[in-house]
């Protein structure tokens, strides 16, 4: 028999983040060398270290490869329609304000079809932690062009190379009013975990972009090797520049990737502004939705 049998039997429950993962659904569907799993691992670690009441943490995903995250995390999870994770999460948050609502979705979902919701939630400084996994492509559907695909990259709907400009996501988020904007690659496991920890503790619209390799589509269509080759690329080409001007952190094809924490400011969140304003205008007549939500019962 193979020497694999000599490995001591390791039980799934022994994995340090097993309490935060739906171990009954492992192994997950993400491809070998896909980076999404690493991002989930870092988020799970951040949750473990945060000391937060996990009963109150919800995760909302849209459609796509990253959209499957909600199905693999052991939290109240919602796998919603394409592009609508952010408004769905808004409803969750406003319906029960004590929830800590995380939106965990991909670039196609959040800033493609979901672009309108993204900018408005940022504008409102809605209390959401938005984790956007950016693999520069629409992975689940087979490798189509995304709003983040860099110029000249090949995708299945731009077979001769992309001629559309791409979003600079930190700039987009910051210009719309996000109060915490950071970008890391999934190679930066420690700093990413720390960013997640910070994001979990802050309020308002927190946006963390995570560059992740897509081996099956992006790397293959552009002959970049496997996800491991992309990780090596991140290793050699990521530049950490905290506080960089977000206008200068756009990503060109196989070019430097500026990482770091770009925006971290204290601004009143949507709920804070709402409460303060109604208190000022309605005085004692104001009855806010209680933190435990608007569920009416006997």
């Amino acid at each position, binding site marked *: *028999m*193979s*020497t*694999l049998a*000599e*490995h*001591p039997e*390791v039980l*799934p429950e*022994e*994995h*340090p*983040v*097993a309490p935060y*993962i739906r171990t009954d659904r*492992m*192994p*997950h569907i*993400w*491809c*070998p*060398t*896909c*980076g*999404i*799993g*690493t991002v*989930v*691992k*870092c988020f799970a*670690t951040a949750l473990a270290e945060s000391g937060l009441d996990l009963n109150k943490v919800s995760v909302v995903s849209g459609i796509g490869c990253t959209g499957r995250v909600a199905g693999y995390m052991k939290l109240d999870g919602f796998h919603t329609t394409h592009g609508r994770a952010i408004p769905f999460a808004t409803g969750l948050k406003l319906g029960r304000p004590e929830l800590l609502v995380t939106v965990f979705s991909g670039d196609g979902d959040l800033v493609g079809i979901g672009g309108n919701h993204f900018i408005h939630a940022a504008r409102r400084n809605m209390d959401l932690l938005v984790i956007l996994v950016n693999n520069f492509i629409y992975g689940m559907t087979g490798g189509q062009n995304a709003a983040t695909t860099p110029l000249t990259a090949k995708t299945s709907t731009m077979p001769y190379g992309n001629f559309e400009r791409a979003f600079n996501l930190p700039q987009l988020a910051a210009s719309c009013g996000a109060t915490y904007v950071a970008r890391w690659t*999934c*190679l930066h*496991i*420690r700093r990413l*975990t720390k960013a997640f920890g910070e994001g979990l503790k802050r309020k308002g619209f927190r946006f963390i972009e995570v560059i992740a390799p897509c081996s099956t589509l992006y790397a293959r269509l552009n002959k970049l090797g*496997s*996800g*491991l080759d992309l*990780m*090596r690329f991140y290793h050699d080409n990521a530049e950490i520049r905290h506080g960089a001007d977000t206008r200068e952190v756009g990503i060109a094809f196989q070019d430097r990737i500026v990482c770091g924490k770009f925006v971290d400011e204290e601004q009143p969140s949507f709920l804070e502004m709402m409460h303060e304003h109604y208190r000022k205008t309605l005085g004692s007549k104001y009855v806010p939705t209680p933190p435990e939500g608007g569920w009416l019962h006997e």
Partner: protein
Amino acid sequence: MKYWRKPLDFGDVKVPRGEVRILVERCKGCGFCVEYCPKDVLVMSEEFNKKGYHPPKVVKAGECVNCNLCEMICPDFAIFSVAVSDGDAAAAAGSSTQPAGADPGPPEQELRRA
């Protein structure tokens, strides 16, 4: 580790020791852990798991310092390390550094069928 001058607290610092545990059936053979382990504890094995991937195997058990990098970077929740005391680490270093090649096992075709 080579020092140009021995640090004054050299005797007090204890290098952590760890033991790698692998959930073989979850592994998809991505190679991240092998690539980024700072102590080169792992290599890709020649064997297959049930899905046909090559999981990693430990080749330098005594070197693991429980940094958890493999655990953090694995996208498949398939590997982690646990702290071990110095005594355990020494025993581990003695016994499990035998490379898998010591007993090559059945030929590859047979493994695939199994």
